[in-house]
């Protein structure tokens, strides 16, 4: 049964997955167990995305299915059943840029990979990143930007972070459709990525370093 749900979600069979969830709840199964299965399914989705069997629409669709399951299951959850969270990551679209589709996918992928993500939204001034880093003690910051105007904004954001003395304590990655290593050098970031999987790999790498 568990196998079924994991596979059904991973294969993106929405109706079937929801039916299994309802059935299992009716049979009195622990809601948390269902969530765990869903997370396992998302891991498979992530792997398939990494292997280029799945693409962004598949991620978006799996995210929808997960959300629907969470909504059904949540009222039935008892007590403080929380998944253990790995490292903290702050992410946001830099000042001047209001695009969030790419950033939201990165947030989603980091989330299903077990990281604690603080998503600050779009058009985020440097100060906000700093405040959040101080508040949460997160040591990884991701800056997103879709347009070339974000180059300057990313550079400025990183300079402001440097000015506070926080720069040596955090790893900064940048990403977006126009980003490459030249831009990384220009902005002074530690690394760059052009898809959601590279964000996950970078974070895993940095999280493992400590």
């Amino acid at each position, binding site marked *: 049964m568990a196998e079924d749900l994991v596979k059904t979600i991973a294969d993106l069979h929405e109706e079937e997955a929801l039916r299994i969830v309802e059935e299992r709840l009716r049979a009195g199964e622990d809601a948390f167990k269902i969530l765990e299965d869903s997370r396992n399914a998302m891991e498979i989705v992530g792997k398939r995305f990494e292997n280029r069997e799945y693409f962004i629409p598949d991620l978006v669709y799996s995210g929808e299915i997960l959300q629907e399951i969470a909504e059904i299951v949540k009222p039935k959850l008892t007590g403080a059943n929380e998944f253990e969270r790995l490292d903290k990551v702050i992410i946001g679209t830099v000042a001047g840029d209001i695009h969030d589709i790419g950033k939201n996918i990165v947030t989603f992928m980091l989330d299903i990979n077990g990281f604690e993500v603080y998503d600050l939204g779009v058009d985020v001034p440097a100060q906000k990143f700093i405040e959040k880093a101080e508040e949460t003690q997160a040591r990884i910051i991701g800056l997103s930007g879709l347009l070339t105007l974000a180059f300057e904004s990313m550079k400025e954001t990183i300079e402001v972070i440097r000015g506070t003395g926080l720069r040596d304590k955090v790893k900064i990655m940048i990403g977006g459709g126009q980003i490459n290593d030249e831009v990384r050098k220009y902005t002074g970031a530690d690394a760059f990525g052009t*898809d959601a999987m590279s964000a996950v790999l970078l974070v895993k790498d940095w999280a493992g370093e400590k």
Partner: protein
Amino acid sequence: MIEEKTPEELLQERTKRVEDAVQLKVPDRVPVAPNFGFFYAKYAGITPEEAHYDYDKWAMAVKKTVLDFQPDMFVSPRMILLAPGPVLDMVDFKQIKWPGHGVSSNHSFQFVEEEYMKAEEYDAFIEDPSDYIIRTYLPRIYGVAEPFKMLPPLSSMMVGYAAVHLTAALARPEVTNAIETLSKAGAESLRWRSIMDSIHEELGGMGFPSCAQAIAEAPYDVIGDFLRGTRGVMLDMYRRPDKLIEATERVLPMQLQAAVFIAKRSGNPRVFIPLHKGADGFMSLEQFKTFYWPTLHKLITGLIDEGLTPWLFIEADYTSRLETIRDIPKGKAIYHFELTDIFKAKEVLGDVACIRGGVPSSLLCTGVPQEVKDCCKKLIDVVGRGGGFIMDAGSVIDEAKPENIRVMVDFTKEYGVYG
């Protein structure tokens, strides 16, 4: 004695250079046409806000940039700034944020992602797109058109004299007010348009053809960009694939008709088709062949049948789709690449379409002239071999160092000569 060419001669020479490249012949040299966007404003020292609100300043900026760089074609300012600020203000536009209205005066306008058409509304759209647009869509994207929700179905006017009394709907004060405001916005749009048209006339008179005046979109993008949004259209591929395909088929003849009309009226045969949501990563190859390519293919061949030249601006990465998009008539279209491996594109498509692009935005923004030169040299040597190539940036040029654009243009003119 140095012979000075007249503007008419220059116009002909540049037009022929581009047309030779399109027809996969060897032109006198590689044409170069930087894909200017808000660079026009930045270079000329005006803010994007001024570009939106002060039409004369924007016109001045475009002309100054074109005259200073002397490209073989210039990007029509109407392909960049599609909506003048005062008109956006008047109609209380919701679908973009523009300088001073949600983005700073120094930034270009940006799109607001939303499901402007709901998933359940496919049938209404497919049945009667015009009615849907006026009574459901416009009220969502123009604040001022909100009262159009109250109008009766437009098709109710079909019963001739029996429906004349339906004009009563227009007498509602909210509707009357909306129409008055829209008609003021119309007058303002006309003023803007005439200034934009005069740029084309003036620059044409000085010997510069434009890249294109007409624009069309792949039907899937019309749905994905303007109606359902990125997430919406992606989910529709799973949840309502048939409706999505039907809607793209409904949109196709409308896109075709509008583009043919404008291109023929303008006298410029090229039709700009920016591709948005069919790239690698945005869907699987199979989804591309199911949802995206069939109607795009018909759009391309339909334009070619009308004697027009589709200029496909193939945004993001299409490396895995090159074989698929080979299937068009030879020597009739421009394939302009952004992140696609352009050398591979030349290999796969060189005998079918004119290749355009190749200079990355990162290089133009952060590189130095020597690096730009090296990049252009390689492009001319490899992609330019045997003709069929137009030198250009891969992305729309907003931020870029002027000296990098300078070297891209001048070096191409010097080194890109075919022996």
